């Protein structure tokens, strides 16, 4: 039977008709104690029947399939693993699959439910196969609507947890049981009285604590913690995090190595907020112990560890540079993960930049502050095959990381993106350049950014680029009114006034034209020509701009021409326009101007109202420190992607706060990052190199024999440990010159620019281009070929 036929929507009656006879026959054989052969037709048919039923779940066909409950149960009986003759795991599995999804009191008769329950309980206690006993437990847990099921599940769990046996199967069973507890309790007591509810939960909390303190197995302890945390957070009167003492947490961290990666990540996750250091020393001790976990390959473990360290760093006064450097490096190493994870990591880098980076310009102290993160900007250069969400995040990062030192590198890079084929990307890049100009107000940053923009304008006259640049220039002029020199303005306006298509760039153009009209002799003509004439076809924003500008021109310099333009616009806006906002606005202007002409309002006041000085704009990308604090406690979570307070995104989640403790730093920015005197890793590298430099030639020579022996994996290399070690002692692969100069730091953003020519070196063979393309091979070449053949 082909798969296509299985994946078809069926009616229950159809299936019943087709397969009922087979089931009945099998049932008869089963009842008489007979055997159904492994390859018999009946068995195969039943298999297909069940597959069809389960496959139908994906078609939202549950209601229909629930009518086959009895039949499926018969199949389970016949082929169940405990039955002596006909055990078949696939069929049992499929039946359980079905029961898990379908058993609800509304659809299935009470009698049948009881029968199935008996069956499951039998599996729970007497099936020696761990796979099926957990499957049975899982089934009991899934079917929450029927109290008997939950009751039985809890009974089994009690039985299992209290058993003293420590065999491996029991350990796995126990673990499953422990983790099932919160799941069962959550729903069970939704409508029971408080008193009883509290009693039962108290019982389990006590049970879990006992198990946690007494168990030798670290994975059991981990499961206990997970369940406890769940109970504490979700039930009254606690509704808070699990609290762990310093000694307990030390014990947990020490045994992290014995956990599998998922448990590890969950445990580190719950340690944040559960451990509250009382003193700085405690905090330091825990940071030291958790540091190795940064080297795990699981992204979740690493991010949780970073979160935990950041959390603890609120309870210390200073952090060593080596710790922050390790965090930075482990973040970098996460950037080669698949895009989705990379995206998450990049979003968290944004979070860290926002919360932990000190704004150098605003710091009043003279001491240079170390940055918390130390990541080279080149990691955030956009690759052409990055998906959109990564490109956007990287652009944001480049913007955030820009300062006076790296601005020229970043601008060069952004310029490359601006001429990208992807129009969205190039627009965003231009936006970013403009924002950088506004951001870096001291020093050369803004000058360079403006130069790049003007360059781009010369470089390509593609419409969308020009429009984007004009919009960006408006922001720049709003920040630096003096940058609008005559040459720039006349260039921008006269060359590109006819290119504007989008409403944003049109408005920007109108604004520039109005603001710098003194640089443009023909401004009114231009204005009339390009904007007033087509006033009625414009969008709302553009109409607003035109209206405001027309009035401004008139107020500034009342002459015949400006009056004519102004009246024209006001007339169109009031008489022919359908938008009430525009109409009201123009009436308001009109009223103001008529007040002027009748001398009711002094000219100065009108000028002040219409053509007043605009405040300078500033870019504000800072988040509230409280929000940042909360987000830091949620590193790696979904909220860290959105960079919004958790409650804004997920209403049911509680806001997290830093717990109070005498060691808590009053202000996050008080954290000092200390440069260690010794930078062990790097110095050692230099050191080893120094020592060996004299013997270097020796190892170079010996490599001649070294390489070929490793290169082929033929049988000759098979050997004992000893020979292996000696071979690798002289590293044959290291003999390539590394000519780049020392930069001094062990991999930071401070390294000076390297050039490819530093790596250049003379080569042994230079193949020149032949003048003629001759097909005839040289005799020498032929000879070489022949000798090669001989070898083989």
């Amino acid at each position, binding site marked *: 039977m082909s798969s296509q036929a299985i994946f078809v929507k069926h009616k229950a009656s159809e299936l019943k008709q087709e397969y009922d006879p087979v089931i009945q026959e099998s049932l008869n054989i089963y009842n008489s104690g007979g055997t159904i052969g492994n390859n018999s037709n009946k068995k195969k048919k039943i298999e297909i029947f069940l597959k069809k039923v389960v496959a139908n779940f994906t078609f939202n066909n549950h209601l229909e399939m629930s009518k086959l409950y009895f039949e499926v149960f018969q199949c389970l009986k016949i082929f169940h693993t405990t039955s002596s003759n006909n055990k078949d795991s696939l069929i049992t599995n499929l039946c359980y699959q079905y029961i898990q999804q379908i058993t609800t009191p509304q659809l299935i008769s009470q009698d049948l439910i009881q029968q199935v329950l008996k069956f499951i309980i039998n599996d729970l206690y007497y099936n020696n196969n761990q796979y099926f006993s957990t499957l049975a437990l899982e089934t009991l847990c899934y079917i929450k609507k029927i109290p008997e099921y939950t009751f039985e599940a809890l009974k089994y769990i009690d039985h299992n947890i209290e058993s003293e046996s420590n065999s491996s199967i029991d350990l796995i069973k126990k673990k499953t049981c422990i983790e099932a507890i919160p799941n069962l309790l959550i729903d069970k007591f939704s409508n029971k009285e408080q008193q009883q509810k509290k009693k039962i939960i108290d019982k389990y909390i006590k049970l879990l604590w006992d198990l946690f303190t007494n168990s030798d*197995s670290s994975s059991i302890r981990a499961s206990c913690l997970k369940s406890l945390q769940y109970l504490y957070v979700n039930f009254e009167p606690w509704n808070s995090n699990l609290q762990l003492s310093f000694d307990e947490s030390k014990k947990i961290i020490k045994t992290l190595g014995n956990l*599998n990666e998922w448990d590890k990540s969950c445990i580190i996750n719950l340690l944040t907020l559960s451990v509250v250091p009382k003193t700085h020393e405690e905090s330091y001790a825990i940071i030291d112990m958790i540091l190795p976990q940064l080297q795990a390959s699981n992204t979740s473990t690493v991010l949780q560890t970073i979160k935990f360290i950041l959390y603890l760093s609120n309870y210390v006064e200073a952090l060593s540079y080596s710790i922050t450097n390790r965090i930075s490096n482990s973040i970098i190493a996460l950037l080669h993960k698949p895009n989705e994870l990379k995206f998450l990591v990049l979003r968290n880098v944004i979070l860290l930049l926002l919360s932990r980076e000190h704004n150098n310009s605003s710091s009043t102290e003279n001491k240079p502050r170390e940055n918390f993160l130390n990541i080279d900007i080149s990691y955030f250069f956009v690759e052409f095959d990055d998906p959109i969400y990564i490109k956007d995040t990287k652009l944001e990062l480049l913007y955030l990381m820009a300062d006076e030192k790296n601005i020229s590198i970043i601008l060069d890079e952004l310029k490359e993106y601006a001429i990208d084929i992807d129009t969205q990307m190039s627009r965003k890049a231009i936006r970013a350049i403009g924002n950088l100009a506004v951001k870096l107000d001291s020093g050369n940053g803004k000058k360079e950014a403006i130069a790049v923009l003007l360059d781009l304008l010369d470089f390509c006259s593609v419409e969308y680029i020009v429009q984007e640049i004009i919009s960006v220039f408006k922001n720049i002029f709003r920040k630096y009114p003096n940058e609008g020199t005559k040459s720039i303005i006349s260039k921008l306006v006269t060359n590109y006034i006819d290119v504007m298509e989008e409403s944003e760039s049109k408005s920007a153009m109108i604004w520039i034209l109005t603001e710098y009209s003194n640089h443009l002799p023909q401004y009114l003509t231009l204005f009339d020509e390009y904007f007033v004439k087509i006033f009625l076809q414009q969008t709302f924003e553009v109409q607003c701009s035109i209206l405001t500008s027309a009035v401004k021109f008139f107020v500034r310099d009342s002459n015949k021409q400006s009056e004519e333009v102004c009246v024209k616009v006001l007339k169109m806006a009031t008489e022919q326009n359908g938008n009430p906002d525009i109409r009201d606005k123009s009436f308001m202007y009109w009223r103001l101007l008529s007040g002027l002409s009748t001398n009711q309002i002094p000219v100065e006041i009108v000028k002040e109202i219409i053509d007043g000085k605009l405040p300078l704009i500033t870019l504000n990308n800072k988040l509230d420190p409280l929000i940042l604090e909360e987000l830091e406690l949620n590193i790696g979570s979904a909220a860290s992607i959105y960079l919004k307070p958790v409650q804004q995104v997920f209403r049911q989640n509680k806001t997290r706060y830093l717990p109070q403790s005498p060691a808590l730093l009053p202000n996050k920015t008080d954290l000092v990052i200390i440069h260690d005197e010794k930078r062990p890793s790097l110095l050692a590298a230099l050191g080893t190199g120094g020592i060996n430099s004299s013997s270097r030639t020796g190892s170079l020579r010996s490599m001649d024999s070294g390489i070929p022996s490793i290169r082929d994996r033929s049988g000759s290399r098979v050997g004992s440990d000893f020979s292996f070690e000696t071979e690798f002692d002289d590293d044959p692969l290291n003999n390539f010159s590394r000519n780049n100069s020392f930069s001094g730091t062990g991999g930071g953003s401070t390294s000076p620019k390297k050039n490819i020519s530093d790596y250049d070196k003379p080569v042994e063979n230079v193949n020149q281009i032949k003048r003629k393309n001759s097909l005839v091979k040289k005799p020498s070449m032929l000879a070489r070929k022949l000798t090669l053949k001989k070898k083989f």
Partner: protein
Amino acid sequence: MINSLFIYSPRGDLLITKVIKDSVRKTSSLSEVFRIQIISDSSGVIRSPILTLGSTTFHHIRKNKLWIVAVTRNNVDSALIWEFLFRFSNLLENFGINNDDSVRDKFTLVYDLLHCILSIDGVPYDTELSNICSKLGIMPVNKNVISGSSNGSSTADSNGISINGSNSNIMNSGNNSNSSNNRSIDDNDFFSSLNPKNFGKFLDRKSNSNSSSNTALNSYNNTTSDIPWRPNLDIKYKKNEIFLDIIENINILISKEGDILKSYIDGVVEMQCKLSGMPVVQLKLNDEQQQQKADDFEHYLDLDMKKRKKGIPDSAVKSVHLDDYKFHQCVQLNKFHTDCSITFVPPDGNIELMTYHVKEYLNLPFSIQPIVTSNSRTNSVHYSISLKSLFSSKLNATDVVLKIPLPQGTLECNSKASNGKCKYSVEEKMFYWRFNKFRGSTENMLQMSARLSENIIFDLNKWNKPAISLKFEILMFTCSGLTVKYCNVRERSNNYRTTKWIKYISKAGSYEVRY
């Protein structure tokens, strides 16, 4: 944690629905929501890998064009969810499920798999391939997919890892499959291997190593030392073998002026273990952190100063500075932290043991020097490129391809090369210069001119000039200079001999030059 899980076909047909915490009805409506919001909305472009509607969040990935979606409530650990989805998709590939037809074919297996790797609460439970195989009693179809990895770089390159031994001896001998479709979950006998006494105190090698394994097994207490990734002690191989592949991807971006804008290496150490019993492997690399621990620190401080003054070239640096490491879960991180030795009990089969990252002091294998000029008279662009290999002449690079993007409107290319094959692809507007084999320490030249269509006014300065990129692969060469110093396998039994294979490969990640 995970409330439900879906798999969709590339077209958006729902293939798998695993209901974990929600009601069935709610889940089916959610699956519809996702289909409408993401699959039918995205025309090949995914705007974001995460979607939150109300309190429901969809994390999704695409693998082999299948959509794999996890539905969660509230604020969850996204890293965990995505990491899990990638592991899950790798496991599916391990069992030969890589398109919608194979999902339909083996959908029961997918459900079984989910049962094994997710706990009752929807939290990832265990994703180690060897464990799952023994739980389900099935063999992986495709063993080349590294189970422990969630990395984007596909490492299914079996070049050199010829698997000599038979596959079947991974499972213990007592497990005979008696059902038609090679499944044997139903027996007790496979649990005999999970017997309590099989859990050893693996690090305790002083214990009596009698030839009979039974006496040895009885000699430790059976309460501790649970190793989640190697629960099965009875693994037996005729020949103990361990394969280490060190694969480096070098990424370089060079500007017009020759400045190196970006340079780093992503390295990965892949391991295939075919080891019997409970071996402990110790690995030592020439990483400076590992070397430094053994050495006296102060001494080098002086040397360092001297060296900088004298300007001794750092080619003499014998060790490599690895900027970061990430280890497979089996590596004892605490031990690495204290004495910098990579010590672990390996899971059976293929794993990605370690990934690392290097950003300083790279051995660049190639230098590319392009000179590009345009001739307005003939309306053509002229390229003169020299490609130099900077590694030892004893080595060869293979599959060297230089890709040169040409401007729109290129009609034809005339090229002369000192070696290699030239090809111009009209559709891609790309010129390829290929070498099957490129010797070390060799320079090759290419002269190429592209003639443009007459009606295009070409200005070199106004062309956005996509970067020239290079692809290559070099065997037995590492761009970082990383080497394995030694690799030691120990086991309790006396006559434990291991054969070790090491391979180094350097590949181009994105090796790009602007001009």
